C-alpha cells in the first residue's frame, strides 16, 4: 500500500498542524470529569483531562528526576508552615473558557464534591485526601490555605496528595440538574452530593462529551472537539487559554486500536505520528527508522515484581525465610530476560524504587543489585539450610532445624506461579524463571490465567482462606506498579496495606515507609530503597517500558514522561 511520508522537514518549528497519537489497545478513554469514579481510572483519561482541566500540581519526570511541572500546574509551589500543618497555595492567573478567572472557590468546589462523594471516588484511600484536610480557607480570590490533620513530609504531600486536586469551574458546574440554577449547592454536604451525582451522571454519557456545554468550560491548553463511540478523541487548541503553556498544534487526535498488532499495522502504513512498536516487532526497527520514525523506549516510573504469598499454608513459612528469597532472587537472570525476551526494551529492577532514572530516591544498595544472577550462590544458600534434592531433583527439607521455623521435614520446594496469560513476554519470562529455578532444584509450575483472574485470585488472604492457595503471582506486562510522583511504598509493602497482596510484614520496613511520608528529609526513602532491596518482600523482576514508541522525526517537543504524562500542548512540527 501507499505509505505516508514521515520524517524530513526543514527542522524549523512550524505553528499549527495535527498530530495523531496511538492509544494502547483497549485503552479507550471513558471519563472526562476531573473526579473519576472507580473503574474509570485508565491513565489516558487523566492525560486527556489534564490538557483541559489543569491540575493544581502536575508532576513529570522529564528532567531526569520526578519534579513539579510548573507550566502544567494551576498553582505556584505550596508554602508549608513551620509546624508543617498548614499549606498556603496561590493560584496562577488562569481563566475558564467562559472568561471567568480560576479562583480559590473552584478549588473549594472540588474539595467539597470529593468530600461528599469520596466513597465513589476512584482515588480515595481512608485517612488520606480528603480526610487529611481539616479545613479549607480562602484567603482571597487566588490564595487559600489548607489545614492538615498532622505534619507530613512536604515533598510527599505535594506530590501524592495535592497533585490529586483539580480546580473545577464552580460557576458553570455547581448545579444539581442540567436545567437547574447555578448556586452554592456544594457548600452543604447534601447539595454537594447532588451536584456530584449530577456531574457523574453527565460524565457517564460518553456520546455527549463533544457537545455537552459543561465540558466546554475548560482552563487548559486544549478543548475537546470530538469523541466517538470507539473512544477516538480529538483535542483542538483552546484559543482562550491564558496560561504559560499554550498549545502549539491546532489539533491532536488520539486513535484507538483493537490490538497492538493492529496499531503496528497502521503505524507501518504511516497512519500514526506517535505510536508504539510491539516487542515482537522490534526486529524491524531499522525499517521503521527508514520510514522516518525514531524508535525510543518510554520508561515508566514503575517497578515490576512477583509477590510471594507469605500466608500460603504450604509455602508461606518457606517464603518467610530470607535465605529462600535470596536464593530465588539469585536465580533470576535479569540481564538475559531484558535483552532477549524484551529485546532490550525493559530495564532491570532490584528494589522498590523505579530504577530507570537515576533519581534522588534510589539507594546505592539497590542500584548495585544485592543478589546478582548466580546459581551457585543460590544452591549454596539452600543446601546450607538443610535442603536436599529428592529423587526427582526437587529440593526437600531434610533438616527442619536448619530450614527454619515452621518448615516440616520433607517440605518440597515446589511452587506454583499464578501468571497472566496471553503475553509472549510474560510467557517467556516465566519459562526462563522456571528453567533457572529447576537448575537450583526448585520446581516452578506455571498457571497462566487471564489477567483478571490473576488479579482477582492473587490477593491478600488469611492462611485459612480457600483463596490463599496461590503461592507466587505475576500480573505481567499490565501489572507493573506505577507510582505517583513520590515512589513511597506504603500501599505495597506496609503491613495490611491494600495492595500488599502477599501479606508481607516487616516492622522495620513499616517504620521506614511511614517515615518517608512524614519526614521532611530524603534519607528515609533512601534507607527504604536499600532495606527492601535486601529484604526481598517480593521477587524483583525486570521492569518493562511503558511502551516502545515510534515517533515521527519531524514531531518535536515530546518528552516521554515516566509518569505517563503527555503534555501534547508542547508538541510541534518541523515539517
Amino acid at each position, binding site marked *: 500500500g501507499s505509505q505516508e511520508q514521515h520524517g524530513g522537514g526543514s527542522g524549523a518549528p512550524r505553528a499549527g498542524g495535527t498530530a495523531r497519537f496511538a492509544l494502547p489497545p483497549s485503552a479507550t478513554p471513558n471519563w472526562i470529569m476531573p473526579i473519576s469514579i472507580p473503574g474509570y481510572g485508565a491513565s489516558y483519561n487523566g492525560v486527556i483531562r489534564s490538557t483541559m482541566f489543569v491540575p493544581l500540581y502536575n508532576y513529570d519526570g522529564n528532567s531526569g528526576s520526578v519534579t513539579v511541572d510548573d507550566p502544567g500546574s494551576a498553582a505556584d509551589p505550596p508554602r508549608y508552615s513551620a509546624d508543617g500543618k498548614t499549606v498556603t497555595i496561590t493560584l496562577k492567573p488562569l481563566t475558564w473558557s467562559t472568561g471567568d478567572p480560576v479562583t480559590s472557590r473552584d478549588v473549594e468546589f472540588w474539595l467539597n464534591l470529593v468530600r461528599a462523594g469520596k466513597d465513589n471516588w476512584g482515588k480515595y484511600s481512608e485517612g488520606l485526601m480528603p480526610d487529611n484536610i481539616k479545613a479549607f480557607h480562602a484567603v482571597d480570590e487566588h490564595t487559600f490555605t489548607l489545614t492538615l490533620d498532622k505534619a507530613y513530609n512536604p515533598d510527599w504531600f505535594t506530590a501524592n496528595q495535592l497533585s490529586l486536586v483539580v480546580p473545577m469551574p464552580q460557576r458553570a458546574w455547581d448545579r444539581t440538574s442540567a436545567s437547574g440554577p447555578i448556586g452554592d449547592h456544594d457548600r452543604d454536604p447534601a447539595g454537594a452530593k447532588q451536584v456530584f451525582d449530577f456531574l457523574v451522571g453527565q460524565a457517564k454519557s460518553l456520546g455527549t462529551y463533544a457537545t455537552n456545554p459543561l465540558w466546554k468550560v475548560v482552563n487548559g491548553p486544549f478543548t475537546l472537539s470530538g469523541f466517538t463511540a470507539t473512544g477516538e478523541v480529538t483535542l483542538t487548541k483552546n484559543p482562550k487559554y491564558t496560561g504559560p503553556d499554550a498549545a502549539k498544534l491546532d489539533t491532536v487526535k488520539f486513535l484507538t486500536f483493537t490490538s497492538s498488532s493492529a496499531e503496528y499495522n497502521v503505524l507501518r502504513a504511516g497512519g500514526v505520528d506517535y505510536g508504539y512498536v510491539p516487542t*515482537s516487532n522490534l526486529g524491524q526497527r531499522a525499517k521503521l527508522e527508514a520510514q522516518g520514525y525514531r524508535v525510543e523506549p518510554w520508561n515508566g516510573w514503575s517497578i515490576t515484581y512477583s509477590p510471594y504469598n507469605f500466608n500460603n499454608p504450604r509455602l508461606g513459612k518457606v517464603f518467610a525465610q530470607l535465605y529462600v528469597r535470596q536464593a530465588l532472587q539469585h536465580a533470576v537472570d535479569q540481564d538475559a530476560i531484558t535483552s532477549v525476551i524484551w529485546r532490550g526494551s525493559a530495564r532491570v529492577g532490584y528494589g522498590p524504587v523505579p530504577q530507570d532514572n537515576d533519581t534522588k530516591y534510589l539507594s546505592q544498595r539497590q542500584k548495585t543489585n544485592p543478589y546478582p544472577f548466580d546459581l551457585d550462590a543460590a544452591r549454596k544458600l539452600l543446601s546450607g539450610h538443610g535442603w536436599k534434592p529428592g529423587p526427582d531433583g526437587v529440593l526437600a527439607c531434610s533438616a527442619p532445624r536448619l530450614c527454619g521455623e515452621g518448615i516440616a521435614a520433607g517440605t518440597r520446594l515446589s511452587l506454583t506461579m499464578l501468571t497472566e496469560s496471553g503475553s509472549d513476554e510474560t510467557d517467556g519470562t516465566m*519459562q526462563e524463571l522456571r*528453567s533457572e529455578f529447576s537448575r537450583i532444584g526448585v520446581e516452578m509450575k*506455571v*498457571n497462566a490465567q487471564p489477567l483478571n483472574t490473576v488479579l482477582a485470585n492473587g490477593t491478600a488472604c488469611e492462611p485459612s482462606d480457600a483463596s490463599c492457595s496461590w503461592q507466587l503471582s505475576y500480573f505481567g506486562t499490565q501489572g507493573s506498579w506505577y507510582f505517583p510522583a513520590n515512589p513511597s511504598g506504603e500501599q505495597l509493602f506496609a503491613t495490611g496495606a491494600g495492595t500488599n497482596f502477599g501479606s508481607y510484614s516487616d516492622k522495620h520496613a513499616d517504620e521506614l515507609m511511614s517515615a518517608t511520608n512524614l519526614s521532611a528529609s530524603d534519607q528515609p526513602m533512601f534507607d527504604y530503597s536499600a532495606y527492601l532491596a535486601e529484604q526481598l518482600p517480593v521477587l524483583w523482576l525486570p521492569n518493562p517500558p511503558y511502551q516502545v514508541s515510534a515517533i515521527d522525526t519531524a514531531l518535536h517537543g515530546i518528552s516521554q514522561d515516566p509518569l505517563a504524562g503527555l503534555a501534547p500542548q508542547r508538541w510541534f512540527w518541523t515539517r
Partner: protein
Amino acid sequence: MTVLSRLLARRTAVAGAILLVLVVLFCFLGPLLYGTDQSHTDLASARLSPGGGHPLGTDELGYDVLGRLMVAGRTSLIIGVLAGLIATAIGAVWGAVAGYTGGWLDTVLMRVVDTGVAIPALFLLLVAATLVTPSVGVLALLIGCVSWLVPARLMRAETVSLRERDYIRAITVLGAGRTRVVFRHIIPNAIGTVAVNATFQIADAILLVAYVSFLGLGVPAPATDWGAMLSKGITYTFDGAWWLILPPGVAIVLVVCAINFLGDGLRDAFAVKGRR
C-alpha cells in the same frame, strides 16, 4: 473381501497410514536419536536460524525447533487421539440412546445437542481453560467434551435406521431390555459408522488442539504442541523466521490429511455413508 483387504486396496488410505506411522515414529522415537533439551531455556542461543547444531534453528527461548517439533507432535497426537475417542464414545452412546428410545427423551437429548451446537466450542474451551489448568489429559477431555455433538447426531440417525431393522424388532418383541438392545445390537452394528467417524474426529481434534493453543489455552510450557509452536511463531512472521512457522504448520497439515485419507479409505471399506 474383508474390511482390511478393501482398505489396503485403496492407495490413498495406504499412503495416509504410512505417513501416519512415519510421523508417530518421528515424534515418539525421534527424540531417542536426536536428543535435545526441551525443558530448559537457553536465552543465549535464542532465535538462531537453521544451520550448525540446529537443523531447524531455535525459537525465541533457545529451544531447538527440530526437537521441539517431536515433543509438540507427541502432545498433539496424544490429545487428538484421546479427544477423538472420547468424543466418539460420548456421541455414540448419546445418539444411540436418543435414537433408540425415541419419544420425549429423544427430544430432550437432541435439544441438548442443538444447544451444544449453537454455543461455539471455542467459547466453551475459553471458559473451561480458566477453570482448570490445561494438561494433556484435561485438554483431551475438554476437546472430547465439546466435539461429541457431530457423532451424536450421526449415531442417532444410524440408530433410527437400525431400529427399524427386523432383527431389532425381533429381539424387542422377545422382551430384551433397552440396555441390551443398545449395547449388544445397535452400537456394534453402527461400529463401521462409528469407526469412520472416529478417524475424522481425531483429525478434527488435532486441528482443534491447534486452535486452542493458538488462542493461548494449550498445555503449559515447556510442554508444547504444534499449534502452540505455530502461534508463537506467528509473532515473528515479519522477521522472516520461517523455521518457526513452516515446520509445525506443515506437520499439522500432513497429519490431518493423512488421517482424513485413512478415514476416507475406512469409510469406503466399511461401505458406510459418511459425513463427507
